[in-house]
C-alpha cells in the first residue's frame, strides 16, 4: 500500500473510478499502469530531471513551469492513452545565442513515453521514451527505464539514456529546418545509466534524489563546418546528484524546489486536471421534473380513447405548454407532430453538454404534457434547423424505468435517422426570426515568438446573430481593441533571420507577398493584428439544409475569417448510427485587406477537401482531409482527437503537402495541438460554452486552410450514436 498524495489520489481516480468517488487511498489493480505523483522539470512523471516509468491517469491534462538559471521550461502534458504520455515543451534555454542575439534561445520540443510492462509482484514497470524527438534539438535523447515500488512510500527507478540523458548531446545542424523525426539518431551513440528514488514522506510531501548524466551542453554544427559545444547556463553541474522536494498544496497543484548538482537551484509549479474529476461531477443544474404516470383508463376515458386528437385546438395548446416547459430546460421546441398515439418533438439543445440529458428531460416533460393515448415518444435533435437524429421511446418504458440504471432505458430506446420533412410537423409560432447578441471583453494571446514570448490584446467584442429561420443565420463579430502588446508586423525578411518587414515596407512591394514562389497566405498573419480601430473578424450569412436523410449541407458567404472572405460550401454524409462519415468542402476565397475591414487584396484561390471521419472506441476520432490548400498546394491533413464524455477534447493534427521542406521553411510541415474544455466542467453550472485554444508549431504558408465557422461534422454529431451513448449516463440527471 503506497500512501498516495492527494494529487495522486485525485489523479488515480480515472483508472480507478471508485477511488475518485470515495476519496480514499485506494490501490490501482495490478494490471493498471504505474501512476506517478511527481512531475519532473520536463513536465512528465519522474525525478528531478530524469524520467521514471510512471504514467499519469488516463486523460490527465497538466502543465509545469520549471525555472533554473540554466533554463525555463513550460511543459504541457497529456495522457493520451493509459500507457502513452505526451508532452509539448516551450523552453527558454540560457547561454545559447542564435540570430536573435538574446543570450538565450526559445525552443519547442515534443516527448512521448510508453509504458509497455506493468509493475507486478517483483517485476517493475518499464517504459521507453523519446525526448525532443521531432528534429534534433537541445533536449534530444531516448531512454528505457524501470520503476519499482520498494516500500509503500518509496519508489526506485533505474534506466539507461542516450543523447542528452547520457551527457552526449546530438549535433544540431543550424541549417536544418527541423520538425521531422530523426529516426536514425534514436538510441544511437553511447548510453549511460541514470536513476532516482522518490520518498513519499506523507500525503503532501515527496523527496527525490537522483543520479543524472545530463551535462547541460548543446552541440551545434555551424554553416562553416565547425562543431561547437555550448553550455546551458554558466558551467556544467558540479556533481551528478540532484535533489528535490515537492509539496502538493491542493489536490491539483504542486510546487517543487530542487538543486542540480548542488550549485544550481530551481523552482517549479505544476497542475494536473483530470477530465473525469470535475469539481461537481453531476453538475449543479436543478433537478428535473419527474415523470407523471398516466391515470388509469377508467379515470380518463377520453384521454385514452384518442378522441381528443380530432379537436383542432388540442395540438396548439399542448405545443405551447410543452414549449414553455422545455424553454425552462434550455430546450427550444422548434416543431412538433402529434397524433392520437404518437408525438414527435424537434428540440434545439442550448444548455446541456450531454445531449442525453436534454433528451431525458424532454422525455419526462412529454409524460407530463401529452394525453394518455400517446404511447410513442419521438425526440428529434435539431442543430441549425437540421434534424440530426431521433430517439424513439415507448412512454410505458419511460414510466417503468424512471430513475433506474441508465443502460436499461438505453436498451429500450431506439436511435434512428431523422426524417428531414415528416408529415404533420407544425412549426412553433413566434420563435423566428431570432436575434441574439452579446457584448463581452476578449483576450487574445500570442505565444512562440522568441523576441516577444507572450503577446496579448484586450478589448471589447460584440457578437450578434440574426436567425431568419432555422438554418438561415446572419452572424457577425465586431472587436475594439483597448490595450495590449500585439502589434502589426510584416513577415520575416528572407535571408535576414530575426528581421521583419515593417507594415509599410511589406505593402509597398507586391513581390514580398511571395516567398520562394509560395504566396504568403498565413505567414503574414500578424499584419492583421494591432489595429486600433474596430475590426470585423467575421461577418457571414450561413444556410444549413438537409436534402435527404443523413445528408447535410452548408453554404457560407461573407467575411469568413480575419484573413479571408468569400464563399464556402460543404456537404456531409453522416447517418445517426454510423461511426463513419464522408464530407466535401469547396471554398472560393479572397485575401482580406490588412486595414480596411471590408476591403480585399489581390490574392484569390479555390481550396477544397474531401474528408473521411471515423469514430473509434474510447472517444478517439480520426479525420483525413485530402485536397488543395490556401497557397494552392495539394496534400492531406490527418487529425486525431480524443474526446471525453464530459466534452473535453484534445487533438493533434499534421498536414503534409507537395511543398518541399525548403519551400515550407522552419518546421518542415504544419502540425499542431487543439484543446477544448467545456466551461461547465469547471463551474458545475450547465452550459454549452467551451474554452479552447490551438497550439500550432509555426504560422507557415504550406498546408493552411480557411477557418470557416460552423463546419457540419461538429454540428451534427452531438445527438448521434457515439456521442449520445457516450453521455447516456446523464439521461435521468
Amino acid at each position: 500500500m503506497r500512501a498516495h498524495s492527494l494529487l495522486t489520489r485525485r489523479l488515480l481516480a480515472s483508472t480507478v473510478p471508485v477511488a475518485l468517488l470515495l476519496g480514499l487511498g485506494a490501490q490501482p489493480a495490478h494490471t493498471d499502469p504505474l501512476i506517478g505523483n511527481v512531475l519532473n522539470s520536463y513536465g512528465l512523471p519522474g525525478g528531478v530531471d530524469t524520467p521514471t516509468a510512471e504514467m499519469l491517469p488516463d486523460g490527465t491534462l497538466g502543465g509545469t513551469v520549471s525555472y533554473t538559471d540554466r533554463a525555463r521550461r513550460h511543459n504541457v502534458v497529456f495522457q493520451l492513452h493509459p500507457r502513452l504520455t505526451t508532452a509539448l515543451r516551450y523552453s527558454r534555454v540560457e547561454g545559447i545565442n542564435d540570430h536573435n542575439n538574446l543570450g538565450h534561445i526559445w525552443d519547442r520540443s515534443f516527448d512521448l513515453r510508453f509504458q509497455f510492462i506493468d509493475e507486478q509482484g517483483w517485476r517493475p514497470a518499464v517504459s521507453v521514451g523519446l525526448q525532443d524527438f521531432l528534429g534534433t534539438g537541445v533536449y534530444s535523447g531516448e531512454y528505457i527505464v524501470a520503476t519499482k515500488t520498494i516500500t509503500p512510500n518509496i519508489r526506485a527507478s533505474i534506466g539507461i539514456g542516450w543523447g542528452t540523458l547520457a551527457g552526449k548531446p546530438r549535433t544540431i545542424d543550424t541549417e536544418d529546418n527541423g520538425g521531422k523525426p530523426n529516426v536514425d539518431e534514436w538510441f544511437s551513440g553511447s548510453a549511460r545509466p541514470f536513476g532516482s528514488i522518490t520518498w513519499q514522506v506523507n500525503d503532501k510531501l515527496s523527496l527525490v534524489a537522483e543520479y543524472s548524466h545530463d551535462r547541460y551542453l548543446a552541440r551545434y554544427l555551424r554553416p562553416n563546418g565547425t562543431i561547437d559545444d555550448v553550455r546551458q547556463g554558466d558551467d556544467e553541474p558540479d556533481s551528478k546528484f540532484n535533489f528535490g522536494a515537492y509539496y502538493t498544496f491542493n489536490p491539483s497543484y504542486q510546487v517543487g524546489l530542487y538543486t542540480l548538482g548542488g550549485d544550481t537551484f530551481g523552482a517549479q509549479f505544476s497542475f494536473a486536471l483530470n477530465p473525469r474529476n470535475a469539481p461537481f461531477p453531476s453538475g449543479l443544474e436543478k433537478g428535473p421534473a419527474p415523470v407523471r404516470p398516466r391515470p388509469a383508463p377508467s379515470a380518463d376515458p377520453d384521454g385514452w380513447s384518442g378522441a381528443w386528437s380530432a379537436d383542432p385546438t388540442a395540438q396548439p395548446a399542448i405545443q405551447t405548454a410543452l414549449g414553455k416547459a422545455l424553454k425552462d430546460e434550455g430546450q427550444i421546441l422548434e416543431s412538433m407532430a402529434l397524433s392520437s398515439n404518437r408525438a414527435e418533438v424537434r428540440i434545439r439543445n442550448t444548455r446541456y453538454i450531454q445531449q442525453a440529458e436534454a433528451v431525458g428531460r424532454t422525455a419526462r416533460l412529454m409524460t407530463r404534457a401529452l394525453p394518455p393515448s400517446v404511447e410513442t415518444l419521438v425526440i428529434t435533435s435539431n442543430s441549425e434547423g437540421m434534424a440530426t437524429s431521433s430517439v424513439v421511446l415507448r412512454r410505458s418504458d419511460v414510466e417503468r424505468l424512471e430513475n433506474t440504471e441508465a443502460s436499461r432505458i438505453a436498451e429500450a430506446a431506439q436511435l434512428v435517422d431523422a426524417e428531414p420533412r415528416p408529415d404533420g410537423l407544425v412549426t412553433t409560432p413566434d420563435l423566428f426570426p431570432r436575434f441574439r447578441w452579446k457584448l463581452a471583453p476578449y483576450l487574445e494571446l500570442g505565444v512562440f515568438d522568441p523576441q516577444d514570448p507572450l503577446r496579448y490584446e484586450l478589448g471589447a467584442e460584440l457578437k450578434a446573430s440574426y436567425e431568419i429561420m432555422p438554418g438561415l443565420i446572419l452572424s457577425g463579430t465586431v472587436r475594439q481593441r483597448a490595450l495590449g502588446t500585439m502589434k502589426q508586423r510584416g513577415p520575416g525578411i528572407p535571408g535576414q533571420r530575426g528581421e521583419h518587414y515593417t507594415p509599410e515596407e511589406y505593402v509597398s512591394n507586391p513581390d514580398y507577398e511571395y516567398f520562394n514562389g509560395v504566396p504568403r497566405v498565413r505567414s503574414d498573419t500578424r499584419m492583421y493584428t494591432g489595429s486600433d480601430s474596430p475590426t470585423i473578424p467575421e461577418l457571414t450569412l450561413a444556410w444549413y439544409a438537409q436534402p435527404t436523410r443523413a445528408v447535410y449541407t452548408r453554404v457560407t458567404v461573407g467575411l469568413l475569417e480575419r484573413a479571408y472572405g468569400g464563399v464556402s460550401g460543404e456537404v456531409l454524409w453522416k447517418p445517426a448510427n454510423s461511426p463513419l462519415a464522408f464530407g466535401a468542402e469547396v471554398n472560393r476565397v479572397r485575401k482580406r485587406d490588412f486595414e480596411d475591414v471590408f476591403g480585399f487584396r489581390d490574392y484569390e484561390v479555390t481550396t477544397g477537401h474531401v474528408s473521411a471521419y471515423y469514430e473509434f472506441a474510447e472517444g478517439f476520432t480520426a479525420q483525413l482531409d485530402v485536397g488543395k490548400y490556401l497557397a494552392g498546394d495539394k496534400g492531406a491533413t490527418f487529425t486525431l482527437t480524443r474526446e471525453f464524455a464530459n466534452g473535453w477534447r484534445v487533438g493533434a493534427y499534421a498536414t503534409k503537402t507537395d511543398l518541399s521542406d525548403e519551400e515550407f521553411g522552419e518546421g518542415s510541415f504544419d502540425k499542431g495541438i487543439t484543446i477544448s474544455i467545456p466551461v461547465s466542467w469547471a463551474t458545475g453550472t450547465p452550459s454549452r460554452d467551451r474554452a479552447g485554444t490551438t497550439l500550432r508549431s509555426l504560422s507557415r504558408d504550406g498546408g493552411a486552410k480557411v477557418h470557416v465557422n460552423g463546419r457540419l461534422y461538429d454540428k451534427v454529431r452531438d445527438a448521434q450514436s457515439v456521442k449520445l451513448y457516450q453521455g447516456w449516463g446523464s439521461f435521468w440527471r
Partner: protein
Amino acid sequence: MITSRIHHAALSALLIAGLAACGNDDTGNATNPLLIAAKAAGGTVAQMRNEKAEPAAPKRTPEQMAAEALRVNPAPLVMVGFESLGRTQVMAMTGQNGAMRTFMAPSEEALILRDGMVVGTRGLGNDLSVAEPGTEALIRAGRPGSAKRVMRYYSGDGLERPLSFDCTVGPGPKAGVVVESCEGHGTSFQNSYMAQGGHLPVSRQWLGPKLGYVTIQTLRP
C-alpha cells in the same frame, strides 16, 4: 503625451474590466481558456467563503420550518438534514411514480425516495444517480440477513459508475431501529431506519462519499 496614452490605456482597462458580459445569448460560445481557470478558482473561493459564512447565518429551528411548511403546503412533506452540507430543509413531493416519490426543495434540488428508502438525488453536484438496495425487503421486515447494495453515481466524464457494497441488516441499539451495515471499496457506512409496518418514516442514510449522511423524517406521509 505618454502620460495621456497611459491614462487612456488605464481607462480602457477599467472600462473593459467593468464590462461584464451582457447580451441575450448564453449558448455555445467559445471562451478564452483563462476564463475557465478564473471561474474554477472563483468557484472554490466562493465555496470556501460560504463554508465560513454558513454558521453565522440566522436560522429557524427545524420545528419552525416544519410547522410553516405543513401550514402552507398540502403535499406530502419530508424534513431532510444534509449532514455534510450542514443544512436542514423541508422538501415537498413534486411527483409520484408508483411507490417512488420525488421531493424537491424550493431551490429545485431533489431527493427521490421509495417509501422512505433513498433512491437518488438531483442537483447537489455530487448526485447519487440510483441506489439499488438488495437489503430493502429485509429492512422493511426488520429481519436480519445480508445482501448486496449497488449505488450508482454520475461521474465527471458523463457516465454512470456503480459502487457495490456487501451489507448486513440487524437490530440496532434501540428497539424499533434497524441498522444496515455496508462495506466495500475500502469504506463502510451504517444506515439506520425506524421501520413501522413496512414503512420507513425516520431514517439516517448514506448518500455517497462526498454527500455523506442524510437524515430523513416524514412530516406528512
